[in-house]
């Protein structure tokens, strides 16, 4: 089992996300993370899918995506050819005896304190998914109140773009 990141450029139209996720559900693809965002053109949206599975299932996922008329372009990323990152907001209890430890762990990960009160601390961390996992694991030693993370976004390195790939 491996982890794959696939970027999909789709028509920016009502219901397109539903078409894509409906296909994932119907064919039981195991999606770990999915982000949708606007792009440099208002006609297109970008979906970033993180998928765990075998290579043959990943290929099937890509082939099935190609069949959706609203899909304009697909690109598969790996660690070498792309930059990926994810955003985390984490709320942890603010307790006198652990406060210093919590803050130094956050410093070590480069997490920014975005809110502070007597009752809680909120951190923001932007990093690759694995580093975010690590940070959360460290924070589990303290009292985590709430977590929200976005799922991965990825861009290819170099000057080429996914739009140059409009080969469908």
């Amino acid at each position, binding site marked *: 089992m491996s982890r794959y990141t696939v970027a999909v450029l789709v028509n920016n139209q009502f219901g397109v996300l*539903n078409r894509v996720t*409906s296909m994932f559900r119907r064919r039981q693809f195991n999606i770990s993370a999915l982000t949708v965002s606007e792009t440099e053109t208002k006609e297109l949206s970008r979906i970033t899918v993180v998928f765990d599975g075998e290579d043959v299932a990943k290929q099937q996922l890509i082939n099935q995506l190609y069949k959706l008329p609203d899909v304009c372009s697909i690109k598969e990323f790996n660690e070498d050819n792309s930059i990926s990152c994810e955003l985390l907001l984490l709320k942890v209890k603010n307790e006198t005896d652990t406060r210093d430890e919590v803050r130094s762990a956050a410093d070590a990960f480069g997490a920014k304190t975005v809110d502070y009160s007597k009752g809680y601390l909120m951190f923001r961390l932007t990093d690759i998914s694995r580093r975010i996992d690590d940070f959360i694991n460290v924070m589990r030693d303290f009292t985590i109140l709430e977590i929200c993370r976005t799922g991965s976004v990825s861009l290819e390195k170099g000057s080429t773009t996914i739009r140059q790939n409009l080969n469908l």
Partner: protein
Amino acid sequence: MLLSGSDIVVKTLIEQGCETVFGYPGGQILNVYDSLYKYQNEINHVLTAHEQGATHAADGYARTTGKVGVVISTSGPGATNLVTGIATAYLDSIPMVAICGNVPTTQIGTDSFQEIDITGVTLPITKHNYFVSDVADLADTIREAFKLAKSGRPGPVLIDIPKDVQIAKCEYEEQAPVEKDEPFAAKDVRIKEAAKIINSAKRPFIYFGGGVITSNAQDEVLALAEKIDAPIGCSLMGLSAIPTDHPRFLGMQGMHGHFASSMSMHNADVILSLGVRFNDRVTGNRTKFATGAKIVHVDVDGSELNKTVNSACGLRGDVKLTLKKLLPILNEGTKSEWMAKVEAFRKEEENFLDNREGLTPRRAILTLNKYLGDNTVVCTDVGQHQMWAAQNLNFKTARRFLSSGGLGTMGFGFGAAIGAAYGIGERSVLITGDGSFGMNLNELATAVRYNVPVVVIIMNNGVLGMVRQWQALFYDKHYSNTILERKTNFTAFAKSFGADGESVTTPEELDEALGRAFNTEGPYVIDCKIDKDEFVLPMLPPGGCMDDIITKLEVKL
């Protein structure tokens, strides 16, 4: 020209070359029906008894003609009644455009009367669907739907049109019918790879499916078989593409396939698979399926390659164009040893043929064969009769055998037979069972009303035969809910609907009845009484392999 949305719908259908459409009116599609009234000299609408029958008719029309079948319904229950027909077309890759009315846009999402989210419902059973919220998009959406339905791997497309969009006015300008996307051959590098594998084959087998019919590649398949000296088999969906009496053709293979066809495929070292998708009814246990063979797989839909079985070489492309490029680089060769082995399988198969006297299923189909012209379309429903038809019909021309292969829809046949008769303008035949016929027999009213010449042969055994067969073999003969115990008199039923019909119990009676049926102007129903314990053989048990094939009935019933 300034037209209402509903006029634009009908004008665009005419512009796209639709001559006959099927459907059923209702509240939210009234405007389109008003436009159909207005343009009735340019487009023919066939009113069925139920929307499901209309989808199957549009499907049957599409299967026989290769054109896009069109079905029209109202919102809510009208739209949901299309679902089985759309799914049937989806699983068998049939080009279809379904048009539904819906409540006005201002009421969408408020659960108003007869409102249903039909684009949501049909998402997984259409190639694509549209909700048209602006009349300005209407004509182009319909054009795009036609293009999608027939391009690449064909399939159904649904268009949902709210009532206010049907009423709104917009400029309409007639355009030429849309062309399907230009078909393409597989990549040269893949074709070379495939040629290498095929050229090294000692025991090649050609296995084709519905994709060959869609791409009209039967001549290329035959040329290929001749050049490399290979036998040919097919899936249920491939039937009728190659004439049954062609010396290289071994028939359908799979769960109830011809013994020689299945055995040859099992013993092949290279299986050249054309426009097929290796459905479980074909492969049985996939881990034991043709283990000694390299599979070369050609399909226009790339997602079919390596989906269920791994191929040594996968070629994404149109079957016809790909074979045209492949043929010149294949070595000519004779495989006399292999062909002798195939011939031995064929001889062995003859031992299993059912030659009993009396009105056996096989004898019934063989009797029907005498009446079939080159152009007669035969439709089936789903169950034992479907397999008996697939095994014993004498196919002559492509697109003349219609059966619900992928979805296995009981009740498909009558609508399809009506659509087929419209498609070719000739008499069609429906082979059905008393179970399947019971599902959509209301369409006899349609056939009577329009005087559609459909010969209906009900293989009447009083049971749900295929399920019963499984119960006999795998469920300790617990005939749970498969004994119908109905008191239906099909002859009286036919007469009450305004058709004619009769009941037969011997092959001679069937022969005479067919003589009358084929000379009747409208529909004719033949109630063909067969024994409830007839089996479809051979049978590859579900999840089994060729070693498990059942060729003779050894179960005591």
